[in-house]
């Protein structure tokens, strides 16, 4: 976002663009959550240096990985002024499917399992997208329905069956054990996902359309943006990412069964909102959602490291959500007042 292409013949524009850069940084919606995360990590580290030991860091990152991927997908959907509550159930179905594939198709290549998991997730997400765009019922209601439908399918399919890590090839489990420069492989995968989606959202017309749709759906229609198609794709991509999270879940955790992923959806929405994604759409970024995910998962570890009662963890998450919403409201009330004053001058 620098001014590289604009010629800067005199020093003045350069300085003003730098000042603008600082101002823009201060206005970043991701700033509060990033500051909160850094503060949390530093305070915990000061109290308990083991918190940032190689093993401690690795655990932090592993815990955050799946949530990051889910939060990125959820951010896409929320930015269009929708929401997907079925992600926990999608993750559950795909995770169980992954366990089932390894157990029932011996020798299946890991890459094939990934492909099948992503396609499965895409189909489940596309069903959400289709229902939302065709039925024109709020996504909240549609995905609340599919949350239960997908979970029901998972129950019917799994019954009492669970698949354990022993059923899966060692190389698959190693994905969430092996590290490069201290970073677990699946965490690096999540970082790649964040970067790719962030570039698409900031740098392609389709990505910007999602912001426009969430900012004012009626104006988007008036302007001829293909609202239905774009929203459908956002849901489908969210399904793909939930599918990816499901496959990684099977790699990271010992057992997958009928209840895998239950209740995750609210954590995911919370991560996105805390990360600065406005719940009514139009602003926020996937990077912010990812930082929000890291913050929420880190709080658990930090409170354990600080020997704070586990009970407080959820209350603190609640306070963070309220803080994020209040920051948002204060900002929009201030712009509304500015608008009213500037219009009053005209009359």
């Amino acid at each position, binding site marked *: 976002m620098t001014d590289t*292409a604009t010629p800067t013949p005199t020093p003045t524009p350069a300085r003003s663009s730098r000042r603008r850069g600082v101002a823009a940084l201060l206005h970043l919606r991701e700033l509060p959550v990033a500051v909160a995360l850094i503060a949390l990590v530093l305070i915990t580290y000061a109290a308990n240096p083991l918190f940032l030991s190689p093993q401690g860091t690795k655990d932090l990152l592993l815990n955050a990985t799946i949530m990051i991927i889910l939060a990125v997908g959820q951010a896409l959907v929320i930015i269009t002024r929708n929401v997907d509550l079925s992600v926990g159930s999608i993750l559950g179905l795909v995770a169980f499917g992954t366990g089932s594939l390894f157990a029932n198709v011996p020798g299946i290549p890991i890459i094939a399992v990934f492909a099948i998991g992503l396609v499965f997730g895409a189909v489940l997400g596309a069903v959400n997208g289709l229902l939302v765009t065709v039925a024109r019922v709020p996504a909240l209601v549609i995905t609340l329905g599919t949350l239960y439908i997908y979970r029901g399918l998972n129950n019917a399919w799994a019954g009492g069956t669970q698949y354990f890590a022993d059923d899966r090839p060692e190389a698959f489990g190693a994905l969430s054990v092996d590290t490069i420069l201290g970073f677990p492989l699946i965490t690096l995968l999540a970082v790649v996902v964040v970067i790719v989606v962030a570039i698409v959202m900031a740098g392609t017309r389709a990505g910007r359309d999602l912001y426009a749709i969430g900012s004012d759906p009626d104006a988007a229609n008036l302007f001829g943006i293909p609202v239905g198609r774009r929203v459908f794709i956002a849901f489908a991509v969210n399904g793909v990412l939930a599918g990816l999270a499901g496959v990684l879940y099977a790699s990271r955790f010992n057992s997958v069964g009928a209840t895998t992923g239950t209740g995750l959806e609210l954590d995911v929405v919370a991560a996105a909102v805390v990360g600065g994604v406005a719940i009514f759409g139009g602003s926020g970024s996937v990077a912010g959602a990812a930082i929000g995910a890291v913050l929420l998962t880190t709080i658990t570890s930090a409170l354990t490291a600080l020997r704070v009662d586990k009970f407080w963890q959820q209350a603190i998450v609640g306070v963070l959500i309220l803080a994020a919403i209040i920051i948002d409201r204060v900002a929009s009330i201030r712009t509304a007042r500015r608008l009213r004053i500037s219009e009053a001058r005209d009359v």
Partner: protein
Amino acid sequence: MSPEQTHPPGNSDATLLSLRGAAKTFGPVVALADGTVELRAGEIHALVGENGAGKSTLVKVLAGLYHPDAGVFEIEGEPVAFRTVADSKAAGISVIYQEPTLFPDLTVAENIFIGRQPKGRAGLISRARMRTEARVLFERLGVPIDPDRIAEGLSIADQQIIEIAKAISLDAKVLVMDEPTAALSGVEVERLFAVARSLRDRGAGILFISHRFDEIFELTDRITVMRDGRYIATHDTAAVTTADIVREMVGRDIAALFPKVDAEIGDTVLRVDGLSSAGVFRDISFEVRSGEIVALAGLVGAGRTEVARAVFGIDGYDTGKVELLGRRLRQRDPQAAINAGIGFVPEDRRKQGLVMDLSVARNATLTLRHALARFGLISGSRERRAAAEWTKRLQVKTGSQEYAVSTLSGGNQQKVVLAKWLATAPKLLIVDEPTRGIDVGTKAEVHRLISDLAGRGIAILMISSELPEVLGMADRVLVMHEGRITARLDRADATPEAVMHAATASMEPVE
């Protein structure tokens, strides 16, 4: 029918856009019966008509938002049928709506280029190029708007400029402006006109919708008049006067449609004194006496509804006072207004006047729920009895009182809203657009009801954008224009021309 009331000639060489006989109905409501307009390359063409004459529907047809049920639509001689807004855009039509339609969370530059942002390396959007191109546009328009700021918080004038910049960057052949000057100041209007003229000189065709006659005569080459969803006539601007156009806009037999029974006019019920609210309305003073119907006339956006909302205590105001029967009413306290004896029938009955999913009986007795309750519980039988009485008196046509209000026709819904307030025995009833979206037959019934209420000594403040309704019903007419009262007319002096002139604040005298 005067001789010039014929359709414009069809196949002129320079015809850019031609729409003939376009019709659009929504259920029983005819929004457009004969939408006809012919736009030549290199002209600015005014489209005029009262509120509800069908101008906005016609614009939406041109924009590809509405699909006409009938009619011929040609661009440069080729028939077209737009299925989406994108089709209309692709054909070179750009529409600037009355309400700017910007995306508040996106930057100014992005608002201009959304969907066709310039690309840089690796096929990604280049913000630097987008910013530079936006700057070039703003320089051409002579406005200093920062392309990097977000659109939220921009003044209406700046938003309008951004819409124009958008249209220019699209290189539109046809530019439709729906009341673009409504929120602009003098300097801004001049700038807009300069831009419009330069676009015309490059061969674009501009369709300019406005209620301000001084602007129309200053800017446009031809004028097309619409009335009641129909094409009336097209004139060369130089060959007509404001009076000619106003006559064509309102020309219709008024007295026959809207009976106002003479009522005995008594003491002052409502006194509004020097009411002002920054940026909304200014120095509003008037009285309404018992048995009297006072109409607040004016164009949409003149501030009439806002005055009514302030009187009823929904919105606050900066200075001035509101008195009912000599007692001052507190600001921002609708419950006090209701207790003092004011009823308010809002403009949008579906959203504000009724709870659409509740039964007719429940809706009709909503205002009575305290009176009907015993020990805090509402008695179902007393509720039904009260509702039955009022629905009978107002002749609400419904299969059963237990049906949801949403199943009733518009006119009968309006009667339920009236019943709701009449049950409280109000001293003053404010009715905002009482017959909007109601078919002609039921309209007369609603009018008879309102007139009957005045006959029983209720003071009535009626906001209406329909001139015939104002002239037929009101004892006195207050005309508002841009937040001020610009004329106070007695029934005898309230001619369509006088009201229209005050509403548009045109400088040219009538006749």
